[in-house]
């Protein structure tokens, strides 16, 4: 089965990415983690995302487009990246989620990916 691991990080953690003192450890942890997923041969795809302040949110209501600066919800933890992995079941997906850097300071939501519609 395929699962998306959705990594959310507290707002202040996004600042570490740019901080000269903290950035090496931050990126080091992530590349080690993504490397281990690739090495296990379970990677389907995945990306890191620019911080939430770069987000733009769009809604169309009554045919009118409403564009707003910022992420869809102003909450303490924000989406930082995701990865889709192919593993036998939920337990394996949870194990991989627990190994991620953001499990330690943020959280990881695990969702099964819908299979393509049967024809």
């Amino acid at each position, binding site marked *: *089965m395929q*699962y998306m691991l959705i990594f959310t990080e507290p707002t202040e953690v996004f600042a570490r990415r740019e901080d000269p003192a903290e950035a090496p450890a931050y990126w080091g942890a992530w590349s080690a983690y993504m490397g281990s997923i690739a090495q296990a041969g379970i990677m389907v795809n995945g990306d890191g995302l620019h911080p939430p302040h770069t987000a733009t949110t769009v809604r169309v209501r009554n045919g009118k487009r409403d564009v707003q600066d910022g992420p869809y919800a102003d909450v303490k933890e924000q989406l930082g990246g995701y990865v889709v992995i192919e593993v*036998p*079941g*939920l*337990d394996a*997906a*949870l194990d991989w989620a627990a190994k991620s850097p953001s499990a330690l300071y943020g959280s990881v939501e*695990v969702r*099964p990916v819908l299979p393509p519609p049967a024809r």
Partner: protein
Amino acid sequence: MNEGDAQQAAETAARGSYGRLLSLIARSTRDIAAAEDALAEAFARALSVWPERGVPDNPEAWLLTAARRSAGHVRRHLGVRDAAAPALEQVYEAMHARPSPDFPDERLKLMFVCAHPAIDESVRTPLMLQTILGLDAARIARAFLVEASAMSQRLVRAKSKIRDAGVAFEVPEPGDLAERLEDVLAAIYAAYTLGWDDVPGEARAGDALTGEAIFLAGLVVQLLPDEPEAKGLLALMLASEARAKARRTADGTYVPLMAQDVQLWDGAMMAQSEAALRAAAALRRPGRFQTEAAIQSLHNQSVMLGDVPARALLHLYDVLVRQSPAIGAAVARAVAYGEHAGAEDGLARLDEISPDRVARYQPYWAARFHLLQAAGRRKEAASAHAKALELTRDPALVAFLRSRLSKAD
């Protein structure tokens, strides 16, 4: 065998085979709801036919054949709801390829699915009661004091999560087993304590599921014979259940432990409890349920001998609060200290519990009332008493608490 016994034997057999077959069919598809649909008619038929005609020699084979027949029927008439049909067929063929169909028991895997950490804690026990024992949602809802529709909805949601999120039908790896087993045992114990206002001294209200809980614990013991905590849980529930008849008078009045008529205790059940506890201890891995069972065993012996080994009892309570974070354990310990080391000592231990954890916890206020009264602090006792009454649902327990206050006046 009289009629009641025949009914009982048929129900026990039907429940046993139902869970075995359901777990076998649901294992490959992870689709519990579909497996339930496939078995529902056959199970209902078994419950009505077996008490009259007797339990068949191979109850699983009987149920499977009946389910296969009704699945074919449903397919022809509706053309839908047969998501489990291929699995049903597969199990049927596998079983009939053997000279004597001996059904593998996959119920343990199903129990681990029901109590999986990804399943909301409040629905684990209902899920287990429904899938392993075939209890219907309305019966479960009554025991949990919720609307039948609300209970059905929770169960349906949990089953689709299991199917869609890919919760595997597996016994956890040895490294995870102890932790995951704790969840299974906690879900079973929750079925047992349902409707108890677990005052140290015990009372029970409503539609109890104690027999069901004991059956489930026995099943875990049988399928995981090397796990001492499963044996501990079984011993704990048996030790308490053995006193069931002595807990109320004929008119329903609650009788505290020390005043119970030992003649009304179930000696065979108590012996089973002791045997389970000894077998658990022999495995030399202590745990919360074993300690609680040891405490119950000591209580039972104290009442029979008329003498409480206070030091041993207090020691067990000290061990218990280190093993179990439950408030019930901390309150019971305070009561034991109050009884054997003085009321003020007990009160001091009640004060160690953080106030926000006990604001709505009836046993805490009942214990507090009891200890304050024993310490002669009557004004404070009265206000604790009012609080305890306010939080009590069970009328027999309300009557008991009232009588305690009037005695003090």
